[in-house]
């Protein structure tokens, strides 16, 4: 329940999505119910090192990429 808070619009993995203002990368990963150890995050084509996830809030319009490892050769 985020009702009281203002929200921002970002693009996560190509999908427009609305997030509570002040959402950090760490919080986003948590919201997406992802295991942090199996993902990495980029904002506007620039890596956000995992050490900085907790202190990096998302800004409106940012393009976030959340990636993981899949089978490949």
């Amino acid at each position: 329940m985020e009702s009281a808070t203002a929200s921002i619009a970002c693009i996560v993995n190509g999908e427009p999505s609305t997030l509570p203002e002040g959402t950090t990368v760490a919080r986003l990963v948590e919201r997406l119910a992802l295991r942090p150890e199996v993902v990495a995050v980029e904002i506007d084509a620039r890596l956000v090192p995992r050490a900085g996830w907790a202190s990096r809030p998302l800004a409106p319009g940012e393009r976030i990429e959340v990636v993981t490892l899949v089978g490949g050769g």
Partner: protein
Amino acid sequence: MIPEHEADQPLVVGDTTLRSRLLVGTGKYKDLEETRRALEISGSDCVTVAVRRVNLDASKGPSLLDAIDRSKHHILPNTAGCFDAKSAVRTAELARDLLGTKLVKLEVLGDEKTLLPDPVGTLEATKELVLQGFDVMVYCSDDPRLGVRLQELGAKSVMPAGSPIGSGQGVLNHNALRILLELVSVPVIVDAGVGTASDVAIAMELGAHGVLLNTAIAGAREPLRMAAAMRDACRAGRNAFLAGRIERKLYAHASSPMAGRIHGAGGS
């Protein structure tokens, strides 16, 4: 325990030391369990993976990482699917942040039809990734002088395609591979093109330091059996290379003695 008559050096790429000279991919398997068993049977201690967007809708299932025992296998992330240096570099950075390792297999492809590497983008990305401190293994064509250029830029391994990715044609140009091996000092690992066991054996007999393959195992009718075949073929080819094969001749050199044959058995 390896018997003394089969003793060999490990394969060293940058800071990584590999016991097996067979590197295997993790793509196209039926499921994670088949992937896990194929890796185990192959005896490889270096497996490649790709970096892709998390599927936000998908049920949160197990991750590929759960199928790979990192105490047994080094993980080699690739930049497959990148068609320019910039996205290849971004992909490498994401992988390094995720895995905490600096090893990367660089792929900068030229087009989606052939998936052949683009030499210009590949040179550019190699330079950038080396600057950033990665141990870069570079997927490239078998052009020997391109290999030299990549080594000059600091690549830790050159990985020429024996033939196009997934084509199953093996090493098409033995001569180019031989010359590349003469010209560079970093490990040369044949990447892509393997179709069956003898392709691996031939690459190793030519002197390649290792072979990387994926489709040849995952796409076989019996992947687990093919994983075993590739493991054995890699060892066979390596040992044949080290053992020093006999020469090729137009014909004939008797393996049974010609002397002491019984009366009347003589030839012309």
